[in-house]
């Protein structure tokens, strides 16, 4: 009898499974507005939004330069490391290592590195460089594979690896390589910004303090600067300027950089589980409360947030993508659509989450909605652009009929691919948003660092990495189950 309730079609089955799960999680979880007067705070934010203000120029310039320098140096290091690793990406150990590097969010790397180097530029740029190396190695390797698959260059058997690369690889992959690296630089600016939330002197630091003090006019001004940087990046961020920028960044950060780290032995000792350091301590007594009071609740809340946010992102993306698709509206509506989607997807989810947290109070709701807005806009953007490649019959219907019968069914597979790729990112960000005080893994990781229980922090970070790797492979399994093509996506 229950067999009848299970849909025949695989895609319908997967989608209704995800939807039902998200619905059940929503019901049983702590998702409410807890502030008494969310409207009053909203009015203050709106007032700030209409009258942007900027901090003193020297302070502002300092924050901008710090943000750009971290992104620039971090991405350059990551591109170099990622490129070298991509050459040996066929080795399983390299793939596993890269997966682990990128499974830990850059802010968690930042928290870890602060213990070693303190609050200084090295911490910031390495926090970006380490996870980005894992990401870039994978993408560079995929770009090369795909190029070979498409072109199958014919070369003499005994030519050297290096000449092979220069003649057969580089010409084919140059554009994809540079485009993706530039895109990563844009992400690096976002990462550099949010590193301010853990104390580094970037734009995010200014943003956080402005938020804390309720100076919403300053928040708006800083956000405008941030959007401006992102929106004009194709103009000022071109590769030909990089040598100048890089030397400038090194010159600028050099006085603050210090290589005298705290003792590595001390750090290694700190991250070793306490019972292994102290003889009189029972491992079970130490480990059990960590699992029951931090790890499991943290994992559970991360999962709840991530799963609901994934479904909401997907739904939002389906509503948003027509805004920038050539098949709908006119040039004015598309311009407005593009603009709003740029703002929605450029705003780092941590900042969105912070704003919503102030409005709605602590529950998982701010995190879920922040993630849905940010990721829904990204998936919607990708899907909308994809829809522009679809040719329609001359007699194709218009409006909602076109949306529901012609375009959406045709972009649906691609939309699912984009969404499944985003799943892992959403999960990583769900863990991270705990830093704001919501009880996902990030909250427990942040608290462990604050109370100098580095061993606990490490265990929780490993748990969040394992969750991401698990979700990543679950996404791969589902893509295979649905026979979706393997497709490289920027995002």
């Amino acid at each position: 009898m229950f067999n009848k309730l299970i849909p025949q079609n695989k895609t319908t089955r997967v989608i209704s499974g995800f939807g039902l799960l998200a619905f059940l999680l929503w019901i049983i979880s702590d998702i409410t507005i807890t502030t008494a007067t969310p409207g009053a705070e909203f009015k203050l934010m709106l007032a700030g939004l209409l009258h942007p203000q900027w901090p003193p120029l020297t302070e502002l310039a300092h924050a901008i330069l710090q943000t750009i320098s971290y992104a620039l140096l971090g991405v350059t290091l990551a591109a170099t490391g990622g490129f070298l690793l991509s050459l040996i990406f066929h080795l399983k150990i390299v793939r596993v290592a890269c997966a682990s590097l990128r499974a830990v969010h850059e802010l968690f790397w930042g928290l870890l590195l602060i213990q070693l180097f303190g609050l200084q530029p090295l911490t910031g740029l390495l926090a970006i460089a380490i996870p980005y190396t894992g990401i870039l190695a994978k993408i560079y390797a995929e770009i090369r594979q795909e190029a070979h698959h498409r072109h199958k260059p014919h070369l003499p058997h005994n030519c050297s690896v290096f000449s092979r690369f220069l003649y057969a690889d580089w010409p084919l992959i140059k554009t994809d390589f540079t485009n993706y690296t530039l895109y990563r630089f844009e992400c690096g600016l976002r990462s550099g910004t949010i590193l301010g939330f853990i104390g580094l002197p970037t734009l995010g630091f200014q943003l956080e303090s402005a938020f804390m003090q309720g100076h919403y006019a300053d928040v708006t001004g800083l956000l405008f600067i941030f959007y401006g940087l992102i929106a004009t990046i194709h103009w000022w961020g071109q590769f030909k300027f990089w040598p100048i920028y890089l030397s400038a960044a090194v010159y600028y950060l050099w006085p603050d950089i210090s290589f005298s780290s705290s003792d590595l032995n001390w750090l290694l000792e700190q991250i070793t589980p306490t019972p292994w350091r102290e003889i009189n301590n029972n491992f079970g007594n130490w480990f059990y409360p960590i699992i029951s009071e931090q790890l499991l609740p943290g994992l559970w809340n991360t999962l709840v947030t991530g799963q609901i946010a994934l479904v909401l992102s997907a739904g939002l993306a389906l509503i948003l993508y027509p805004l920038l698709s050539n098949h709908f509206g006119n040039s004015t509506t598309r311009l407005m659509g593009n603009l709003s989607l740029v703002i929605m997807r450029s705003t780092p989810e941590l900042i969105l989450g912070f704003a919503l947290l102030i409005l709605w109070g602590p529950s998982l709701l701010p995190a879920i909605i922040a993630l849905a807005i940010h990721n829904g806009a990204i998936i919607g953007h990708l899907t909308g652009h994809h829809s522009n490649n679809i040719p329609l019959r001359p007699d194709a219907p218009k409006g909602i009929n076109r949306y529901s019968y012609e375009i959406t069914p045709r972009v649906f597979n691609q939309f699912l691919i984009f969404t499944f790729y985003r799943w892992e990112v959403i999960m990583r960000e769900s863990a991270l948003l705990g830093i704001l005080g919501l009880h996902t893994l990030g909250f427990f990781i942040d608290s462990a660092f604050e109370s100098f229980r580095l061993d606990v922090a490490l265990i929780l970070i490993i748990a969040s990495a394992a969750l991401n790797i698990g979700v990543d492979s679950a996404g791969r399994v589902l893509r295979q189950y649905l026979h979706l093509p393997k497709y490289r996506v920027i995002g």
Partner: protein
Amino acid sequence: MALEKEQNNFLLDLDCKGIKYDGKTVLSPFHLKLFEGQHVAILGASGAGKTTLLKVIFDHLNNTSRDIALIPQELGLVENLSVYHNVYIGQLDQFSTVSNLINLIIPRPNARKTIASILDTLSLSNKLFASCGELSGGQQQRVAIARAIYRQATTLIADEPVASLDQNQAEIALNKMINNHTNCILALHNTQQALSYCDRIIGITNGEITLDAATSQISPKDLEDVYMTLNVQ
């Protein structure tokens, strides 16, 4: 000639100044009159300009807000939708948007019955809810034909609609198309099909209309010329 078959009511009176793509002439200037009730075949070798001519005719008729069913060469099916929904698309403009949306989830019983019977004659009855992407080329072509028939328009414009069908299926499909539309304009590959199903034949060679006559007045030699000229060039 067929042109003088005094019916007086024109379906189309078209004066075309020629079509160029990238400076290259695809269709030379021509003057074409089509009458109501005619079944016209357009013949010509690949690349002769059949598709372009059909497009010009479609655009012209579409501007007169006539009801047209169209089968483009690339069919225009939606792969992720079922056969039923693809055929239903033929009448999307007949129903409100809300009922169209509901129909995506719960198929409307009437439509389902009609569509099933159309598919039945095209030997696709067991494919009603199969996904269009899973069908073979010939099956997809029949779905596009079913969509055109379900549209119940007076005029049909089709670009090689039976190219992937075997002779038996092609005959059934052509019969169905001819009987369901007052006016037919069909680009065809097979001269025999043109001679047996259409009452007027237009031949195109290198973008030029080189033959236009009633089927009854056409000799096999005329048709040969339509194809031969291309080979000479």
